[in-house]
């Protein structure tokens, strides 16, 4: 493996992370929070130093980057980034346990939004800002950002492996021929949508700090609230804006690119978009009917139903109401939505609508093959034939997905909480949502779980964000064999 090149990449990622932490430092200075600001400053210094030293030792890394190196590089950089990014929480003693701090940071970068904090409002603004901003950073991916600003001096497309490893979806492609142009288009769309969201929230009279943090949480489909009751206490207007924007960030970003280049027809015909919107509207309808007796007015019923469905399906995890109190059907629908997740190529997590479509189509084909064994069938997506390799990947993804859920639930069950809690906790972490049901419901936190369970859930969050395989590769002995 090309360790030097990997080291060079990770060092650059650390430098980018350090730069991303600077706004939080400014927030700390503005609100005069000496303890938080000081720990933030120390952490930034540590990260810059670590990045600098690593970069110095690996400065003469040669190109020659293969698929394996790409995957390992992405996984390692996420681990390193989280292990160092959580330092401000730990140094400031606002989260005294290091395991808790890592959990919180991974939850931030993976845009999960699961928190160990029971009283968020007691946190300093500086750290709250960094917590929410980490969603925004992790949403589109740090490596994607690096690819957007960094032009590799090496001739070659090796960076494609990095894009594939970090971007969600069964079949990652480019929008335009150059990887740098592709990633910078993605980031521009991301920034533009975030700014529109912030402006609309400000129009609704939200304080600037709250608007920024909420918008970051929405954009990355993260879900860290800065209030103990998440979005509940804000006005219906703000809740509705957030509903819409969560749904928008759950759409495949290539759809926005197609809109920009005026290919409206292809957007309307996009099968994944149709599935995504269909499932979301269906779920909102069912939930609204199911909870009609819980709220006094129809407006309130629909608003809460839409918000919760949008929040869970896009794997954001904001809440405007304690859905743990809802009837069983609605809770089950939400659990199913957790698994389905958002679209491929969005900032959301989960199994992804695109992959779901592929698995369903393949299932249909296999059934019809059982009846007529000689029938030759190809699977199409948006009119294009899907390669068998992609289908195979989707199937093994599903297998890995189920296995990880089973083992995680098994280990988490050692803590002896209800099955509902354990299952929903694993699903909420693995699919990068945040709140689950029962003891990890929207009004509660993950503080009750033991350190072992927290580590398992941390692993699940990373595995979910990086789509399992890059992380599993780290555990394969083949990967570390010298060649």
């Amino acid at each position, binding site marked *: 493996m090309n360790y030097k090149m990997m080291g060079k990449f990770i060092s650059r990622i650390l430098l980018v992370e350090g730069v991303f932490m600077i706004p939080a430092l400014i927030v700390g200075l503005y609100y005069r929070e000496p303890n938080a600001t000081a720990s933030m400053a120390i952490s930034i210094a540590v990260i810059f130093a670590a990045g600098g030293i690593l970069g110095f030792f690996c400065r003469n890394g040669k190109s020659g980057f293969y698929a394996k190196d790409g995957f390992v590089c992405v996984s390692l950089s996420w681990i390193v980034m989280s292990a160092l990014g959580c330092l401000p929480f730990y140094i400031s003693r606002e989260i005294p346990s290091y395991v808790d701090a890592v959990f919180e940071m991974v939850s931030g970068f993976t845009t999960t939004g699961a928190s160990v904090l029971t009283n968020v409002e007691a946190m300093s603004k500086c750290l709250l800002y960094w917590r929410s901003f980490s969603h925004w950073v992790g949403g589109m991916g740090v490596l994607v950002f690096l690819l957007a600003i960094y032009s590799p001096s090496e001739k070659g*497309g090796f960076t494609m492996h990095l894009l594939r490893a970090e971007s969600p979806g069964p079949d990652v492609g480019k929008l335009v021929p150059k990887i740098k142009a592709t990633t910078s288009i993605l980031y521009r769309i991301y920034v533009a949508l975030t700014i529109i969201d912030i402006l609309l929230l400000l129009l609704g009279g939200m304080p600037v700090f709250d608007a920024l943090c909420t918008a970051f949480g929405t954009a990355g489909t993260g879900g860290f609230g800065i209030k103990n009751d998440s979005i509940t206490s804000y006005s219906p207007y703000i809740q509705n804006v957030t509903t819409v924007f969560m749904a928008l960030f759950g759409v495949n970003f290539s759809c926005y690119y197609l809109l920009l280049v005026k290919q409206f027809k292809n957007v309307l015909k996009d099968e994944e978009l149709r599935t995504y919107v269909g499932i979301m509207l269906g779920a909102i309808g069912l939930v609204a009917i199911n909870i009609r007796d819980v709220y006094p007015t129809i407006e309130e019923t629909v608003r809460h139903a839409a918000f919760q469905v949008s929040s869970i399906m896009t794997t954001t995890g904001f809440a405007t109401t304690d859905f743990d109190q809802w009837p069983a059907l609605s809770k089950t629908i939400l659990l199913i939505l957790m698994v389905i997740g958002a679209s491929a190529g969005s900032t959301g997590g989960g199994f992804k609508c695109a992959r779901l479509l592929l698995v369903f189509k393949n299932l249909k084909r296999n059934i019809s093959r059982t009846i007529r064994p000689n029938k030759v069938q190809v699977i199409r997506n948006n009119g294009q034939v899907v*390669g068998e390799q992609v289908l195979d990947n989707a199937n093994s993804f599903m297998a890995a997905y189920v296995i990880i859920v089973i083992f995680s639930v098994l280990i988490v069950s050692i803590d002896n909480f209800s099955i509902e809690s354990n299952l929903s906790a694993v699903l909420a972490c693995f699919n990068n949502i945040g709140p689950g049901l029962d003891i990890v419901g929207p009004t509660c936190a993950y503080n009750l779980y033991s350190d072992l369970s927290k580590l398992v859930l941390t692993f699940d969050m990373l595995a979910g964000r990086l789509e399992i395989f890059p992380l599993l590769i780290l555990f394969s002995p083949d990967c570390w064999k010298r060649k």
Partner: protein
Amino acid sequence: MKIVIAGGGKVGTALAKQLAGEGHDLIIIDVNSLLLENLIEKFDVMTVCGNCAAKETLEHANISEAELLIAVTSQDEVNLLCCMTAHGLNPDIHTIARVRNPEYTDQIYEMSDLFAISMAVNPDKQTASEIERLLKLPGFLKRDSFAKGLVEIVEIKVTPSSKLSGISLNDMSKTVGCNVLVCAVLRDGASIAPDGHFVLSEGDRLFVTASTNDLATLLKNIGIITHKVRRVMICGGGRIAYYLSSALIKSGIDVDIIEQNNDRCVALASMLPKATVIHGDSSSQSLLESEGIDSTDALITLTGIDELNMIISMYGIQKGVKQVITKLGHLDSSSIIRNLSIGSVISPKEQCCNTIVPYVRAINNQKGAAVSVHQIADGEAEALEFLLSEDALNCDIPLKDLKLRDNIRIACIIHGSTPEIPGGNSTYSVGDTVIVVTGGGLAISQFNDIFR
């Protein structure tokens, strides 16, 4: 620039490597999705899977926004249809098509408007004429000509018996008796830009700029005995063999062609009445010997299998054939091949790139673009020819006072039709042709880019 390449085979891949490296936006079309997958992982390009001559595929590849289409699939007809369709979809597009069938040659030039092609390339024909040039002056491993043939950059290998072994470049002109400039040296697989104190040693491969008129003197004085080629043996009877044989026969050289396929033999025999066509397996040692490999002046291996070509060439050198030329279709001149004794290596895909790349640079940068571009020193260096226009900088200033970028040297200045191998006091002026050699992967598109 937005470029669509139709066909991701040998030439398509070589072009993708070169053009993606120069920073163009490339979309590659091919029917083979596995091949495309491979290209995406190697180069920063986008791919479209499908038939490149079909309107739908071309639209998918965004042909209406592309500035250039390069059709290099294996079929001439597909390439032509591809260019015509692309032109129908985007009348402003430049198109380059690879057309190899000799039967089409005339109509391509007469009806280029009808076929909507801006340029036709025929790597087989180019390769054949390249081999012909090498045969004219045996002793050079490779010849690249510039300024309408006035100046050449030739490759010389320093052999144990060579007079060049052990002398420094400052003394070289005295030894060779004419004005030459060594612009690059390949030693142990690495390219070196030598200065005057550089001492040559056995095994070095030199890239020497010289006036074409001095080449014979150069050969004589470094101790390579020139012999006139009278009899040539060609293994493999493909298109290159046809083009080459018809040219050689015209200049009165005896040609033996060994070809395995009987039908092809008959076709060759009918097209080339003066050639000796032999039906047989050229990998058979006894056949080569019975056909007189010992007495041939030159052996040229042109079969479709690179490995076979190399083996036959090695055998030829072992048998003492004075000049051996090996065609490599797939393989790059990698470090493994460099150490084999297979004579001169010639690669059709490289010939094709050498024609297309300057065309691309010229569209991209109409004024001051290189007239021709040649890859030398196994692609480690590049020689570019510029015709100086009014806006060329630093005219009439002695070269020793110029601040050139690293890895750049001026190899030759052609005043009108007199080539000058430049020294520190040489100058150039508007209207001159200048040959610049660059190394280290530096891409130069305009003459003025060579200055700091």
